[in-house]
């Protein structure tokens, strides 16, 4: 449970996010979904919606 980690951030609004994780900036809602989907499969990390414009990819250790 302690091993949860944000592996990537995908966002439509670059100015709303910052920090140590890789940030992917996209320009449409479709692109947001598509890129998050790809990253989910690559990173084996779950996509969570923090805000309608920002998704984060979190690895939950189980």
């Amino acid at each position: 449970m302690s091993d949860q980690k944000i592996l990537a951030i995908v966002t439509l609004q670059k100015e709303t996010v910052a920090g140590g994780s890789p940030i992917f900036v996209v320009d449409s809602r479709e692109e947001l979904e598509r890129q998050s989907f790809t990253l989910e499969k690559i990173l084996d990390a779950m996509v969570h919606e923090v805000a309608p414009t920002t998704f984060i990819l979190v690895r939950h250790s189980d």
Partner: protein
Amino acid sequence: MNLDHLMVAVIISGLAGVCTRIYLLQTDYRQYPTYPHGYIIHLALGIIAAGLGSVAIPALIKKDFTAFTFLALAAQQFRDVRNMERTMLSKIDQMELVPRGVSYIEGIAMVFEGRNYLTIASALLTSFTVIMWNATVGVIVGVVCVICSRFFMSGKMLNSIVDIREAKLRLDGASLYVEDIYLMNVGLSSDKKAIMENGIGMILTPKDASSRITLSNVGQRQAILHDVSTVLGVYRDTGEPALTPLGKLDLKDGRLGLLLLPQDRNVQTSIDIIGKVPVLESAMKKPLQANASRGGTS
């Protein structure tokens, strides 16, 4: 008392012990132990245990105290059974899509150790009866022992402490709920679709305060999820972290909300399986009998 009589005692009680072990050794819906090798390991240990139990009293009668000491020493080996089971199941668990969880593994390991002692006890009791009375009484006692062993080893099941019913899964934006219990945040619309199409929502309502504590145990929840996915399969793969069966508590009243993702979407069978999940010994608490307010004596 001649040697032949003792031999008869050893043989009958040995058989009673082996029968006890075989009777307790069955692959049930949880698919453990597996056939054939898992069986053979436990059968072999069972025969050793039965042998130990059956020769104990004859050894004492023959005043062979050294042999009796060795028996005690050999009995120690059965403690390793628990270790063996624990190690193997923990390793296998890493490769499961829905793991058993540590608590369930400990429970299973404990049961396997316990069954060997039960085998020894049943052989011991039978040999005692044969020596004290005769072979016929011994056989009767042996059969009774075998039947009783099942009674001793059958723990409680979940349907005796909770009410299980299907409940509707719903999405509120990215939040997934089973009725009013929050489960998790799902971002991708493809994941949302897969969960809504394949998921089954369940709500388990505890029957009293003790069962509420049992239900809140994380290991117990994992055991439920594992058992359901063993029987009905799981709609999940590696690289699909969103498709995870899980359970969350309603902290206000202790109800447990479950998201199940079976391959075979059969609600009634799921309810039956959950009802037959064993109540883990490590999760079983009895606060109602603890009498903490009166100094902790029950």
